[in-house]
């Protein structure tokens, strides 16, 4: 079955492999041409090896009988005498004899393995023990001998062909020495060929859909999208602008990307993506035809600060105003649409630009010149927030450049300011505890303080509704939204935004509130606070964990949007939304797939029914801080084991939802905070998990692995005691293979440190060649034979590696967004990846267009 993964490109159709192979026209190839592929099969050049395989498969009739049959011989059981002699020699007093014996045993390789194990078990003298240990380690390591590699690949070819002749060769190989890896692989291969006929999971993906459930196109090879890309703007929203007709809405993200959406349904209409930091400030002309952006162009190439004007209908650039004296931080159009106002960083100046010519009309000195500015509706006044050592919000006459007045209040450090539509009232807010303050623009006197009673502090943004009835503000560290009635000063609604609000705007008809959030744009109806594009459609935050149910029919995802979701694996229909109250960072499925366990920063671990989405139990979690959570079911499915970076390790009885055991895990050299020793939240955030990178359970849930600093600690789950700690430099994230006793460490910040460790010993097996890019997320196939590693920006790709050889086999290139969590379907045919746009894409690895040779 696993071979499905191994030969995705070859299939060429969505039907089963056997059919696929039968469809390949059997071209006649002369024997000499077949010789060269054989030589290439074990080559380091993946492209040539791949080509070789294609050639062999193209003519199965020729390839198997005279060729592969002739080249492949079963591993002969070793002659006991041949082995016992060098083993005896290992005990020799003479160094040269021991060395020779060593070399001989290395040559014999697997044939000597059984004997070597016997010797090792008999507790030999130190010197013998050391040599035997080394020899055994080499045998368990990745396949490096070209001869064995060739045979290994040939087994794959044979399994793929699956013809009676191919089976015959496989049977021959399977009859070899039982300890040999090649023999075992041939047996496994035959087993898979047999099982394929009765495989329970036969996905019906034909014909492949061209779009997701919402009509948005799918990338090459992808068969389904879980969630949606509507209103999703990876990297996090900053600004939101409604067109005057209310039909389109724009968002910016990361200062480098701007997108225009259909305001009714969130469909992406057009966008600008670039490396330049162009969208520090944006403004839309009153008629909506021009977009002004301010930022930096030609980053790192001696570029400079610019203001650009764009045609909103085409997003074509109309004009560039450059070079600017100062880095622009705020922009606004005057109501006539002919003049643009800008302020600069650390400069007490206000500039006026003629929109049609791009020329500077006027620049006047202003004491302030801070992060934001607002233009009065009649265009006569500009309000600026303080900056550059100045304090206080000031109003300036646009025509004369004279200061008209200063707001008379204590909030001298306001960072945001907005005019009411009637121009009579100003709203300000800042990094203080005042909340939103309303001022009389004519006198500069404070009219009203809008402050929530519970000390929600800091105001990041403030805006009036176009009818002047409401004020909306973004508050606090959690960046939720407060909606106030201007006339009464009453707090109407509080709107928590799990992914955090960064910018906000009302639609021109005042009926919709648009909010730029951590993962894009969200629109709410002002009267009902109902979201325009519903929540059920998809995640609203990064997906950190993905799992397929054992039958392969469902996909379960856990996200920072405080939910766990259950999806139909075929087609991607959302089935259930399971709600937590904070990020969900741990996820596990019971062995029978009937229960979902999730661990969240809301201090709970919850058990759910996969079929119905019903919450079964709510168990104690691992605090509200830190971010590392791990969950696993015991092999018999009776226990759930949970760990978090509060360092508690708990075993729960699933039948009663009751804790059976609880341990405090204490990795050597790591200071675990004692009970009652409770620092304040700030210290907690700084100290907790210092050096603690990740935790993951072994597949059988008997051991917990913790990466602390440059060490991998192995913890015995039953007792909570540390069994050992082994060096594992550079490891950050841990990924355990469901089978095959391997664990992979990856690292976000250091490219190219993929390391395989053995389970349960933790001992290092292999460091994998540098891959470039960031590789934090990874996943193994169910049998552990392949693993996928995600690479972040700018590569945006997923690499598929072969565990046995430690070689990269395929790549899924050009993903639409940076990939995060990964998961294989149980049969290894499908790969699911969570993307930075909050959606999860599922690829059919058999589809020809999914992967590309390295």
């Amino acid at each position, binding site marked *: 079955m696993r071979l499905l993964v191994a030969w995705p490109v070859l299939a060429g159709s969505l039907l089963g492999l056997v059919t696929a192979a039968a469809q390949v026209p059997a071209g006649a190839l002369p024997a000499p041409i077949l010789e060269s592929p054989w030589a290439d099969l074990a080559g380091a050049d993946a492209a040539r090896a791949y080509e070789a395989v294609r050639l062999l498969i193209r003519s199965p009739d020729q390839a198997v009988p005279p060729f592969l049959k002739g080249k492949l011989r079963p591993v002969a059981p070793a002659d006991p005498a041949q082995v016992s002699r060098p083993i005896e020699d290992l005990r020799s007093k003479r160094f040269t004899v021991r060395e020779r014996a060593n070399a001989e045993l290395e040559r014999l390789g697997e044939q000597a393995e059984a004997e070597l194990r016997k010797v090792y078990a008999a507790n030999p003298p130190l010197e013998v023990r050391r040599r035997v240990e080394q020899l055994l380690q080499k045998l368990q390591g990745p396949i490096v001998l070209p001869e064995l590699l060739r045979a290994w690949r040939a087994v794959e070819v044979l399994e793929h062909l699956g013809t009676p002749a191919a089976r015959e060769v496989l049977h021959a190989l399977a009859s070899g020495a039982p300890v040999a890896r090649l023999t075992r692989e041939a047996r496994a291969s035959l087993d898979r060929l047999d099982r394929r006929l009765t495989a329970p999971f036969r996905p019906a993906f034909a014909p492949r859909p061209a779009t997701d459930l919402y009509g948005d196109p799918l990338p090459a090879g992808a068969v389904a999208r879980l969630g949606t890309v509507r209103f999703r703007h990876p990297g996090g929203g900053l600004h939101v602008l409604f067109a005057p007709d209310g039909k389109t809405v724009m968002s910016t993200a990361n200062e480098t990307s701007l997108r225009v959406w259909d305001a009714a349904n969130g469909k992406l209409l057009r966008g600008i993506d670039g490396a330049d930091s162009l969208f520090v400030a944006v403004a839309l002309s009153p008629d909506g035809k021009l977009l002004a952006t301010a930022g930096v162009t030609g980053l790192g190439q001696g570029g400079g600060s610019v203001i650009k004007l764009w045609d909103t209908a085409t997003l074509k650039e109309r004009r560039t105003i450059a070079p600017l004296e100062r880095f622009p931080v705020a922009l606004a159009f005057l109501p006539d649409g002919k003049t643009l106002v800008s302020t600069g960083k650390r400069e007490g100046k206000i500039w006026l630009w003629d929109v049609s010519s791009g020329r500077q009309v006027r620049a006047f000195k202003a004491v302030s010149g801070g992060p934001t500015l607002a233009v009065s509706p009649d265009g006569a006044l500009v309000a600026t927030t303080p900056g550059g*050592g100045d*304090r206080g919000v000031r109003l300036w006459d646009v025509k004369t450049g004279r200061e008209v*007045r*200063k707001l*008379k*209040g*204590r909030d*001298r450090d306001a960072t945001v300011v907005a005019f009411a539509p009637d121009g009579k009232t100003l709203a300000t807010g800042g990094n*203080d*505890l*005042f909340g939103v303050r309303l001022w009389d623009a004519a006198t500069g*006197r*404070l*009219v*009203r*303080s809008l*402050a929530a*009673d*519970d*000390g929600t*502090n800091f105001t990041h943004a403030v805006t009036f509704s176009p009818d002047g009835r409401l004020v909306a503000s973004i508050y606090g560290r959690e960046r939720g939204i407060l909606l106030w009635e201007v006339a009464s000063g009453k707090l109407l609604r509080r709107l928590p935004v799990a992914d955090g609000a960064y910018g906000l705007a009302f639609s021109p008809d005042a009926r919709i509130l648009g909010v730029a959030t951590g993962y894009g744009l969200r629109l709410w109806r002002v009267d009902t606070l109902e979201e325009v594009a519903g929540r059920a459609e998809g995640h609203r935050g990064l997906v950190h964990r993905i799992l397929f149910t054992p039958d392969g029919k469902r996909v379960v995802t856990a996200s920072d949007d405080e939910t766990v979701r259950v999806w139909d694996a075929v087609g991607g229909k959302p089935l259930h939304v399971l709600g937590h109250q904070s990020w969900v960072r741990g996820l596990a499925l019971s062995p029978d797939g009937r229960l979902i366990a999730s661990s969240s920063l809301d201090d709970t671990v919850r058990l759910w029914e996969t079929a119905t989405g019903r919450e079964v*139990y709510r168990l*104690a979690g691992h605090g509200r801080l830190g971010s590392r959570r791990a969950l696993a079911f015991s092999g018999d499915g009776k226990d759930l084991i949970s760990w978090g970076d509060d360092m508690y390790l*708990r075993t729960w009885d699933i039948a*009663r*939802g*009751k*804790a*059976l*055991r*609880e341990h405090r895990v204490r990795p050597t050299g790591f200071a675990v905070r004692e*009970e009652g*020793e*409770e*620092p*304040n*939240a*700030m*210290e907690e955030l700084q100290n907790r998990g210092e050096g603690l990178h990740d935790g993951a359970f072994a597949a059988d849930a008997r051991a917990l692995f913790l990466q602390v600093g440059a060490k991998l600690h192995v913890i015995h789950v039953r007792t909570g005691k540390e069994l050992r700690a082994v060096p594992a430099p550079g490891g950050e994230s841990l990924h355990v293979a469901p089978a095959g006793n391997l664990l992979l460490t990856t690292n976000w910040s250091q490219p190219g440190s993929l390391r395989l460790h053995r389970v349960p010993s933790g001992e290092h097996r292999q460091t994998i060649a540098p891959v470039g890019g960031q590789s934090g997320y990874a996943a193994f196939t169910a049998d552990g034979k392949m693993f996928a590693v995600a690479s972040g920006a700018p590569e945006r790709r997923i690499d598929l590696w072969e565990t046995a050889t430690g070689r990269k086999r395929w790549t899924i290139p050009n993903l639409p967004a940076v990939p995060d969590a990964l998961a294989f379907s149980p049969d290894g045919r499908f790969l699911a990846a969570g993307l930075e746009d909050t959606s999860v894409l599922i690829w059919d690895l058999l589809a020809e267009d999914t992967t590309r040779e390295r």
Partner: protein
Amino acid sequence: MRMPARGFPRQPAAALLVILLAAILLSPGGRAAPADGTPDESPAFRAVAISPDGRLLAACSGEPKDAGTVTVWDMQTRKPRLHRSEKRGIPAVAFAPDGKTLAVGCFDEHCRLLDVATGAVKALLSGHGEAARAVAFSPDGKLLAVGSYDHTVRLWDTATRQVRTVFKGHTKPVYSVAFSPDGATLISSSPDGSVRFWDVAGGRPGQRIADHQSGIPWAALDVTGARLLTASWDGSVRLREVRSGKALLDLRGGAAQQAALAPDGRALAVCRMGRRGVDVFDLDVREPSAAERKRIGELLALLDDDAYEAREKAEKELAALGSLAEPEVRRAAKESPSAEVRIRARRLHAAARAPKPRLVLNHTDEVLCVAFAPDGRFVASGGKDGAVRLWDAATGKERATLLPPPH
């Protein structure tokens, strides 16, 4: 017009400009009374004290390097009676037991004794090395303790104006000092994380409490002297028996600045960093009755029941009992053989440490200081919004906004 105390431009020319500008802008209207009753520009109040007869209230302000003020209001008329400025900030004030003298600790290293009636400086106590950060009179008024930035507490004889004892032991500046009601013991607290007890007569150090994880800006004894209240930057506010050291109450939250206990010991007011509200909690530290004790035992046993619903229900009921069940719950969290009980008891214990306040008294900016009136009917608080506010301790209604006198 007073000038802004903070962010004052360093360059003389710019300073002049700002003064002129301020004068032009602000002079015609004079002192406006803004909508929320706080002055446009006034320094933050960092300590508040009420005279023993409850008729006067003193509050002081000013950062170490800025100018400072001390103001005394008449509680009846709510009008300022005395106002005095210093070149440096004033971090501490205390009334003498007879209410006629006010001790004022200043960042200029002096401690002044003011005649409350005339405002005259009766004495200038110098030689604190650095700032006089904390002041307290002994109950008989004969002694004045001054805690300083030089890590010491000096004990002054108020009659002779001589230093009687210098208590050394803190490893960081002393932020608060207080006498026991019998005058025999002096306590001091410091950012070094300790509260120290000093024997006043013998001049010797006594008990030392250092169980907070961070500095202790505020420590006080209740009116009986039997209970010690500490507010720490580690976020916990603790009330404990002095004799046994046993914690009676332990509240969690953000870094605490100050706390005050109602004279009858039934309420606690806390102000924390970055908060503009004073939290007022009701204290009920009585022993459970026999029936209650029995029920608590039953509920703790139910926490280990095999039925999930029964365990959930028992935990809810225990949570409702709050501090009454606290000692039992705390013991179960540590000692129960059942992991399930330990986990649930620990959760209950954590919840009991962060109860919902009965009242939140909101300023418009960060609150720095809080005190109860001697009759317990009022809470006074002051902070960065430049006002001292008087609150009804029962209802939380704001009764008065005390502002410094206009210039």
